[in-house]
């Protein structure tokens, strides 16, 4: 009897603090990882124009960043024009309708247009017909 009373007394002093800590840490982890799609984009000084609002959760099939010195990046990895050509042709090959292959180009606002022309010529060569130019809202709400 005495030992069972001792046992129940022992259960009453279970410390919930670490469990609450862990639960909240897990909540924060899952909330942060749900934003990883946005974190994937590298920081670029985009042209400042109101443009159109991007649809939430609907990333373009291919996102190409253009640096001020003409460096191209796809998924934060530096690539050359031939690799862009290969990636775009592979991507467009996976689409039932090539018109649905959506390319978002995020250029540095001060980069010369020749870098944009080069990448668009490559994309047009594989059958890309539609593209979007990434911009930043003038009020500073846009990302960069």
């Amino acid at each position, binding site marked *: 009897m005495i030992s069972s009373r001792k046992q129940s007394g022992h259960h009453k002093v279970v410390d919930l*603090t670490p469990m*609450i*800590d862990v639960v*909240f*840490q897990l909540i*924060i982890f899952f*909330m*942060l990882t749900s*934003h990883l799609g*946005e*974190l994937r*984009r590298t920081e670029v000084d*985009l*042209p*400042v*124009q*109101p*443009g*159109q*609002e*991007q649809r939430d959760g609907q990333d373009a099939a291919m996102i190409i960043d*253009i640096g001020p010195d003409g460096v191209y990046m796809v998924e934060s990895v530096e690539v050359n024009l031939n690799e862009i050509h290969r990636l775009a042709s592979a991507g467009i090959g996976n689409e039932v309708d090539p018109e649905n292959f959506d390319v*978002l180009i*995020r*250029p*540095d*606002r*001060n*980069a*010369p*247009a*020749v*870098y*944009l*022309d*080069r990448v*668009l*010529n490559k*994309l*047009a060569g594989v059958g*890309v*017909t*539609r*593209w*979007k*130019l*990434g*911009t*930043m*809202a003038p009020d500073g*709400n*846009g*990302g*960069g």
Partner: protein
Amino acid sequence: MARRRFERSSHLGALPLTSMIDVVFLLLVYFLVTANFAQQERDLSSSVQAEGGGVRVSELQPQIVEIVLVDGVVEFRIASRWAGSQESLTAILKSLPKEPGVAIRAGRDVPIRAVAAAMQASQDAGFSRRSYVPADE
């Protein structure tokens, strides 16, 4: 009675606030961090038009916006008219017929922000058919 009240107040006084403060600060840090990351980008949509291909030149000729650099200053040219700013380009484009669409072409050294300005102006002017003509190498 008095003893029970004392017990209750002492129990309340022993609430472990440390973990709650930890959690509140973690949430605060989380919202500060995500407020920076959750910036919304915008975009300007366009079709890509290979130079000389697809659409006949005669269809595009009156509606081509040429972006050139004159003494380091960006200038937008539409046929014989020209504009020195995005606002004046928008005003010119508003006076043009919308059915044929508009094509934008830029010189090699023109900054991409001027291309974005021309695309924005054509969108603001009400053109639903917008294309960009990349220059050949």
